[in-house]
């Protein structure tokens, strides 16, 4: 079955006065229809930049230097501005980390949602209002009439993010890209928003690309996940499998660093070292400098993303034999 979104060979770089900085180095992943796919990684690993590049929203000094992003088989990166404008908000929608700054402060909520809806659908003002009110209701907002006429600063963070979700889903897209949708919210609201996203997307068959740095988030809602490090995909798997049987040393390190009650009283495990400053310059495995299992080969050759049985993939020489036999 053709995947909904197929990212292949993607390379993204930033053109700075001090030289070219490579932020994403040859990544692959696919998203199937109806699934919730998570990308998890720490700050600066290239996950946000990847998500922006799907809709050609990379800010100016950044560009995609190589690769394809296929949506229903068509490469989005070759599309013109006008074509992208038709896709944005209509077939692919995106929500961002900080809902407060993502909404225009001088226009009412209803107006902003209406502008989006009427950009992509031929509806008159009255019908648009009806659809929006019902959408605001579906995202769990109380007193939708009042919200419709409010300004963004009159809403709480959680309410604002619900409004963003409403904006994203109003034209019934096929893919929702959610870039750290809960990071700026209170913990108690986080769970609600995640559940909302999962339920709405399950109900309407909308696929989701969820970007986060929080393993808890992926375990909560994502069917499959990819782990990013230093601009590369180091592991991909169905989420539960990833968490139960991580194959890549980085993933293993992340999981063992999580404080759990079982480890009470013991010192926290850490991954020694820091993320490389210029990952594009590294030959060999991106994680080699911090890996506890590092061999000489790791610093000279870059391990490809090996595919294991039942769909799990890991970019590490340690699984090479298993992949070839499995």
């Amino acid at each position: 079955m053709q995947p909904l979104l197929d990212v292949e060979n993607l390379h993204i770089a930033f053109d700075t006065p001090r030289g070219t900085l490579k932020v994403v180095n040859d990544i692959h992943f696919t998203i199937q229809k109806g699934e919730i796919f998570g990308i998890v990684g720490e700050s600066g690993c290239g996950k946000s930049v990847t998500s922006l590049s799907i809709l050609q929203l990379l800010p100016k000094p950044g560009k995609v230097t190589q690769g394809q992003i296929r949506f229903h088989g068509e490469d989005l990166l070759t599309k013109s501005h006008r074509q992208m404008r038709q896709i944005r908000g209509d077939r692919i929608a995106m929500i961002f980390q900080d809902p407060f700054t993502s909404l225009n402060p001088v226009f009412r909520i209803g107006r902003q949602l209406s502008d989006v809806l009427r950009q992509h659908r031929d509806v008159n003002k009255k019908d648009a209002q009806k659809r929006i009110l019902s959408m605001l209701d579906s995202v769990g907002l109380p007193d939708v009439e009042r919200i419709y006429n409010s300004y963004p600063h009159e809403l709480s963070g959680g309410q604002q993010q619900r409004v963003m979700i409403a904006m994203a889903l109003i034209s019934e897209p096929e893919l929702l890209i959610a870039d750290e949708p809960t990071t700026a919210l209170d913990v108690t609201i986080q769970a609600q928003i995640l559940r909302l996203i999962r339920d709405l997307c399950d109900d309407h068959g909308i696929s989701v690309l969820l970007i986060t740095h929080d393993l808890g988030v992926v375990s909560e809602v994502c069917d499959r996940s990819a782990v990013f490090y230093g601009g590369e995909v180091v592991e991909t798997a169905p989420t539960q499998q990833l968490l139960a049987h991580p194959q890549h040393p980085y993933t293993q390190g992340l999981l063992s660093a999580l404080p759990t009650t079982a480890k009470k009283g013991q010192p926290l495990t850490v991954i020694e070292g820091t993320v490389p400053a210029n990952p594009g310059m590294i030959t060999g495995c991106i994680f080699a400098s911090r890996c506890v299992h590092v061999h000489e080969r790791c610093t000279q050759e870059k391990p490809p993303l090996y595919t294991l049985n039942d769909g799990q993939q890991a970019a590490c020489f340690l699984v090479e034999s298993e992949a070839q036999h499995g």
Partner: protein
Amino acid sequence: MSISKLFLGKQSEKLPDNPIPPPSGERTGWQHTLYVIRRDVLAIFSVGWILLMILCALLAPVIAPYPDQGRGRNDADNRLLPPSANNVMGTDELGRDVLSRLIFGAQPAMVASLIVVSVAMLIGVPLGAIAGYYGGWVDELIMRITDLFLAFPSLLLAMAIVSIAGPSLINAVMALVVSWWPWYTRLVRSTTRSLKEEYFIEAARAIGVSDVIIISRHILPNTITPIIVQATIDIGTVILATTSLAFLGLGTQPPNADWGLMIDQGRQFLRQAWWYSLYPGVAIFLTVLAFNLLGDTLRDIFDPRQYR
């Protein structure tokens, strides 16, 4: 060599290492170079012109072709002559060479504006630092007074003061100082307030460094850059102000040469002797332009993340 390189040495110590590149326009390498060169050309022009004006102000008797006429001596035989080989910019109604008058006119322009801006800074900057640092009733008091003076249109207040005190260049300078100092107070106060919250200030206080030293050695140096930008542009604005006052008869008095005064004197002869009013205006325009451009360039150098 670009002006920016002259400054970058000092600046690189202060600027944090910024891994996120400043967004620039969509330019190819060639377009970018052109843009930078153009900007430097403007910077070169502005610095060059200002130096020229300073030179004129300092060395007027040496540079001017007819220094006596520049000071005010008449030459009744050569009234209102059009530009010629003898008088590159023609003569005025008293026969004086316009070019010489122009060169001498650089004196009140440059000196007066420098004095106004420096004194205004001398008054306004410490007041602003004190207000921003101590807060409370000190802040309230200083800011109320500042706001009051700011509430007057600057030039209007200056005009009123000069007309009471008597028209002369000195009075104009003093009047302008009174109108100008509040701007610096307000500027320094806001930067001080935000700096006050920084950790290094708290640390200094915790060690027991006295307030005076904190303000003079830690806070003020960090407020310097917007002050310098503002002061540079202000010199130009004050030149406009002094020449405007002179135009009204409220500034430099005849027979001294002053660009604004010359424009006023030339007004009645506009039809027959256009050069009389034209050239002084060009001088004012280019000088103010130079200071504005320089201020803009400085602003760019000090904070390249701003988009002007």
